[in-house]
């Protein structure tokens, strides 16, 4: 049992290391490499379309990673380096779409729908809230007598 657990642990540890960024691509400067990693996670691999270029093994992703690092070494800011790739491949390469009029529906749609549903629920509940509990009707004389009798019996 411990063996299996150990094997599973080793496997998990390795799975964590298995990344697409290859050693020969990495920059010697750790600060620049960290920036390149951060940007690479935000850029879409155009071949696989749902992986970042940091995660993808496609040749194009490799080339884009190398270009990205070249731009950073050349002194580009993060923004300039991203723009360099967006100029060639369009905004689709951004895994996180920018907030602008064309994407308002995407960014704010869900919140609006939630708000709408909330307002609808509140209105519905208000209308259907049970009214304040009505006071019970007073007993008529016959009933009062009967209750007194019953209570009297209990005591006697």
């Amino acid at each position, binding site marked *: 049992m411990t063996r299996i657990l150990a094997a599973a642990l080793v496997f998990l540890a390795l799975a964590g290391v298995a990344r697409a960024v290859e050693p020969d691509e990495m920059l010697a400067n750790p600060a620049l490499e960290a920036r390149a990693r951060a940007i690479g996670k935000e850029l879409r691999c155009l071949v696989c*379309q749902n992986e970042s270029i940091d995660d993808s093994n496609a040749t*194009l992703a490799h080339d884009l990673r190398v270009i990205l690092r070249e731009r950073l070494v050349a002194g580009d800011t993060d923004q300039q380096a991203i723009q360099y790739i967006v100029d060639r*491949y369009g905004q689709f390469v951004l895994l996180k779409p920018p907030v602008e009029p064309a994407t308002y529906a995407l960014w704010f749609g869900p919140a609006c729908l939630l708000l709408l549903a909330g307002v609808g629920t509140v209105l519905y509940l208000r209308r259907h809230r049970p009214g304040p509990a009505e006071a019970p009707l007073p007993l008529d004389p016959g009933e009062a007598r009967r209750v007194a009798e019953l209570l009297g019996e209990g005591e006697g």
Partner: protein
Amino acid sequence: MTMKRLLFALPLLLFAVLAGYFWLALESGRDPHELPSAMIDKPAPDFSLAGVDGTAGLDRKELGGGVTIVNFFASWCIPCRLEHPLLMDLGKRLGVPVYGIAWQDKAGDATQFLKQLGDPYRSVGLDESGRVGINFGVYGVPETYVVDKEGRIRLRHVGPLTAEDVAKELVPLVRELGQS
């Protein structure tokens, strides 16, 4: 009362709108993986490539002046073999030069490819690193670009060309660009 009736009809209405939208999306036959190029109407990027097998190569200066076609291919690319017979007489059919760029390919392999299947290109540039392709916005091969007289990219076609693509996309566009 009418207000309440309308409210009851609302979900049905929403459903109808959504269903209509989905149906249109399905019917249009649009492939969501095919994306508009960011390079449309922008000048073709600068490049100067060596040729394969001792040929002259390809320079950006050859684009512009007249309408041109630039076709990215590679010897390792299977769909390129599919469109290749169509490329063989594409230049004659459109009446414009067709240039080839061997993307992420080796000179020997590209030469072999052209020897085996025939060389449909006015001239061929070897883009071994793939950088020129990336500047064009190439995702993969084959891709075909139409460049106008001013050297601007006017069309990007992703994937192998079919006879229908040529008849419906390339022929009308090249004719239109040739007249303007």
